């Protein structure tokens, strides 16, 4: 019987080692992609601006509604 890390049941040692491997997967993935996936700044900014305008428009409309009511 192979004893891994002092655990003889392979199902349990597999879980133990699986946890370590799953954690390492996250670590390696994070390191490899550390600087990848940046957004295109220009597009992002124009998107934000149009969005902000829309939100502001809604706010004004709503506040206007409130004025009429109150």
């Amino acid at each position, binding site marked *: 019987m192979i004893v891994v890390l002092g655990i003889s049941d392979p199902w349990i040692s597999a879980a133990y080692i699986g946890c370590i491997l799953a954690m390492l997967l996250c670590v390696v*993935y994070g390191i490899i*992609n550390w600087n990848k996936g940046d957004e295109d700044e220009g597009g992002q900014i124009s998107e934000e601006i149009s969005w902000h305008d829309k939100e502001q428009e809604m706010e004004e409309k709503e506040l206007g509604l409130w004025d009429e009511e109150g």
Partner: protein
Amino acid sequence: MDLLTLGIVVLIYLLLVLYVGYVAWKRTKSSEDYMVAGRTTHPYIMALSYGATFISTAAIVGFGGVAGVYGMGLLWLTFLNILVGIFIAFVFFGKRTRKMGHNISALTFPEFLSKRFDSRFIQYFSGLVIFVAMPLYAAVVLIGMARFVETTLGLNYNIALITMAVIVAVYVVFGGIRGVMYTDALQGTIMFFGMAFLLIATYWLLGGVVHANQLLSGMASMIPAAASSTGSTGWTSMPILGSPFWWTLVSTLILGVGIGVLSQPQLVVRFMTVKSNKELNRAVLIGGVFIAMMTGTAFIVGALSNVYFMQHSGQIAIQATGGNADTIIPLFIATAMPVWFAYLFMITLLSAAMSTLSAQFHVQGTALGRDIYETLANKTGGSSIMVARAGILIAVLIAVILGFILPANIIAEGTAMWFSLTAVAFLAMYVCALFWKRTTRQGAIAGLVIGTVYTVFSFLFINQKAAAALGISQALTGKVVLITTMPWPVVDPIVIGVPLVFIITIVVSLLTKPPSDEHLDKCFKDVG
């Protein structure tokens, strides 16, 4: 432990939390700030907030105690927590959710689903499901925290309940999601160091990893009769295939946590708080290590506590605590660890509870404010923050009231019911929203409504534990459950519900008119 010192340590901790909440409040101006932190959250804060929200005190003390009784088989749960709860969630769900959420300018999980399927009904119905079902789950965490403060600080339970609720409420109401996430990051950091020390110190104390594990393996014959009769074979071996404990382990694992975690509204919304995939890539690393250290430590230490108790008192852990699994971890800390660590561990547990509770309050508040009130009243924009704040206050009030009136038997069921309901109601719709363009509004709505009705009906009339705790079936029909033939009374609605809702969503979608290309282009712009 000195009560005065502990009181001072807790006070310093609470002041720190409130200070961080104050900083968050100063940085919160728009509704985008309040709901998704302006979408500019640092990956460290995002990852720790996700992890600390995910892990409550119950995961550390409750499940750690279960590992003390049943052993290291629970490490499969940790494995899935990391692989599904972090890796798959961030890499495959998180990135798409973030980009799509940005394309359709969604601020909450129901709003995300609603705008993706172009249906306001989805928004207020999902908001309602969250707002009605979550108080049970929030009350469970709040009650756990109050009981813990009651036993450690010697405070009256009622006072503890109200004080803790008020403190969390203050920084959630004022700071919004920034308040929640900044304090989560602080609490997550404390939790990480607390649990890391506990793991290292325990192995150190017991003579190293291999030696300690071998000692525990050698104790297999001492497993209590109650545990072996349900299938347990030792602390470092799997339970007997098909035994009740094996079923609990496998079904809780794969269904409750493995699947349930993916469609948790309070976790999904965190994907929408970062600026780009770069932050999510970095958060995978931080989150993976964090989760491994949380539940991994709790299960390993819980199991190994048997070795320590055997060496020092000649009893296994569950005997040393007089039969109460919930006190295995606290007793082990109190007897085996240095005094200063006992203080740090108190703060660790307080952090775990507060970080989960704050997210629950926030998501309920935005569900009531943004998703229900604003959608039904046809108002969006300016008043979001005020309405969400009112919603949070109502959520806190409900949790406190439930904390006073809930019977003990419903407490344990609360979390399981919440996970089942969200998985059955939301998972199919969420997966289809992200990965299947052919999904139609009608398909999504059919799945959502039928899934919700099915789960609620199951809990009221079919599932033995839930139906007995809720008592509605008993009152209406005179029977605890309508069907007594096995295995129906013990089957969790998630087992049938999730596949059922997937089939309904897919079939109805195929039978109805596909969504317009224009809408899909908008949703899927730059996604994947």
